[in-house]
């Protein structure tokens, strides 16, 4: 997957140096104020808004020629949009690509945090569709900015309370809001709430880019992150109550795959690198091919 040279028609990593500098300033500000949404002058990228333009711009601003880039969508390296974004950087930055979480220096992700724990020096870039955790409670940006400034999060707690009153549980299963260092309420992007515990105390730098909404925010390494909850209704990460049918993993997030029209299903790791690494190490699941057992 090596692409040693970048397309000479474009500047390294597509964006011009002044634009990258502007984005790096926003990233630094985001790191200095964890969880705060920094407005930035998002550029029009050659992929559509909503398809990762924020993440792509953040990645472009972070990349150096020595980097090794991993791109995942839904946890998988081979989903079409992950392929498309990886190709974009192979062409415009000529960086080396990898599917191994442990080998990557920059990982761009949509909707998942890799199962393999990240390490110091790695950067995890999230693609964010709606950066504002209060958006569906208050549609006006002018109003939500004021609420963040005053740490006026009563509305969010009322919403969570109403969920419990109505459904007996907090009815949010992904993009589950978190509180960062006791200050800003932040949208972790639409990761399943199963991934929320990996946000806090993470040794890697976590950067969040929302292109269409022109916002960047960040979690520096080892930031305290708390998923919002109540003392009597504590936060619970959840996943399908199965083991991976290919590698037997019991603690990884699973995709449910419908395998025929009789209602048969199988469950497989959504993190393809994690699953493959385990299978290569000899782990087997319920539906592993016979000869491999």
């Amino acid at each position, binding site marked *: 997957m090596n692409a040693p040279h970048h397309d000479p028609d474009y500047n390294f990593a597509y964006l011009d140096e002044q634009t990258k500098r502007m984005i790096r300033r926003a990233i630094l500000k985001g790191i200095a104020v964890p969880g705060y949404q920094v407005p930035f002058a998002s550029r029009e990228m050659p992929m559509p808004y909503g398809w990762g333009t924020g993440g792509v711009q953040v990645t472009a601003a972070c990349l150096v020629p020595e980097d090794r880039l991993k791109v995942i969508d839904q946890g998988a390296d081979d989903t079409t949009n992950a392929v498309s974004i990886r190709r974009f950087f192979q062409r415009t930055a000529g960086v080396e690509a990898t599917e191994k979480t442990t080998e990557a220096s920059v990982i761009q992700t949509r*909707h998942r945090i890799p199962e393999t724990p990240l390490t110091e020096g790695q950067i995890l870039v999230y693609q964010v569709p709606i950066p504002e955790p209060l958006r569906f409670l208050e549609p006006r940006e*002018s109003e939500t900015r004021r609420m963040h400034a005053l740490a006026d999060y009563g509305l969010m707690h009322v919403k969570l309370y109403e969920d419990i009153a109505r459904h*007996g*549980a907090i009815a949010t299963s992904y993009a589950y809001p978190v509180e960062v260092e006791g200050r800003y309420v932040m949208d972790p992007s639409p990761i399943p709430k199963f991934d929320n515990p990996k946000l806090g105390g993470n040794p890697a730098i976590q950067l969040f880019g929302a292109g269409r909404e022109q916002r960047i925010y960040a979690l520096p390494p080892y930031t305290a992150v708390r998923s919002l909850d109540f003392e009597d209704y504590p936060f619970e990460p959840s996943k399908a109550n199965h083991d991976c049918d290919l590698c037997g993993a019991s603690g990884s997030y699973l995709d*449910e795959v419908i395998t025929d029209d009789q209602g048969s299903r199988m469950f497989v790791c*959504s993190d393809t690198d994690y699953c493959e690494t385990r299978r290569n190490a000899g782990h087997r699941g319920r*539906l592993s091919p016979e000869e491999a057992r």
Partner: protein
Amino acid sequence: MYVAVKGGERAIEAAHDWLAEERRGNPEVPELSIAQIREQMALAVNRVMAEGSLYDPDLAALAIKQARGDLIEAVFLIRAYRTTLPRFGGSVPVETDKMALIRRISATFKDAPGGQVLGPTFDYTHRLLDFKLMAEGAASQAQTRDAAPEPAPHILQLLDRDGLMEPQPRHDSTPPDLTRAPLELPATRPLRLQALTRGDEGFVLSMAYSTQRGYGRTHAFVGELRIGTVAVEMDIPELGFAVEIGEVELTECETVNQFTGSKTEPPQFTRGYGLVFGQSERKAISMSLVDRALRWKELGEEDTGAPAQDEEFVLYHCDNIQATGFLEHIKLPHYVDFQSELELIRRLRAEAQATAAHQEAAE
């Protein structure tokens, strides 16, 4: 049988090849040239330049060809290309009163210095399909006349002299640039106008139409609509003066709006303004109506809660590239999120059924 999502790379390649084939269509039919699109689909080219915020008819024609005639896709191609261009600086404000006019009409005065010029307009054509165009007809030749020698000043300036028109003091501050700074609200009028001129024609049209139907009524007359070319000049610091670097075709619309006065302003006529690349008069008129509706605060008018008066609503939703991208992204895989929703619904259902069974047993 587990069908993995593997093969994304090959699928993408095959899809792109198929797309290229479909773009060409039947190879027995001659291929469209860029020049043909530029010359014969000029209004589509204009729309792509206006919403793409890049004045280059050849590139816009190329984008239309590449996008198979999907104009929003063509705008997208132009916008993405625009990102890669360096910014040298701002031009001197263009002098639209010195425009070389091809069309100039006023709905408020029967005649005005400089006269009315209908120009190449669909107005007053009967919308009957012209079957002659199905055969390759010879180009028809319009009569020509020398341009009127007298100047054609802006018609609203003439009202201005009597004090009936709201004054519009000139100021030379550099307008903000939406493409270089994040949108922050409240926006200034120059920023709003910038957003509207590159906004989706359909969206701006519908917003304008809604004001005519009573949602934020603005009582607009087309004071003047003019189309023509203007010189673009730029100050060159090394030279110490401005030089002409090219010319652009523009459509400019100024509306006159009835205004009976408010707590802060006396009764007078007020203005809405539209300025769009190319011959784009539907867009320019729409823009001037929406501009006027958005000015309610500065004129001390009542907020009726109409969508067209709501700056945040209009500015955040007028861009078709943002809108189409976000809308279409729901085609992307969401199975991780959907999986977590499945689990949540299954759990809530199980709990609800358990509660119901418990109640039944108790009854």
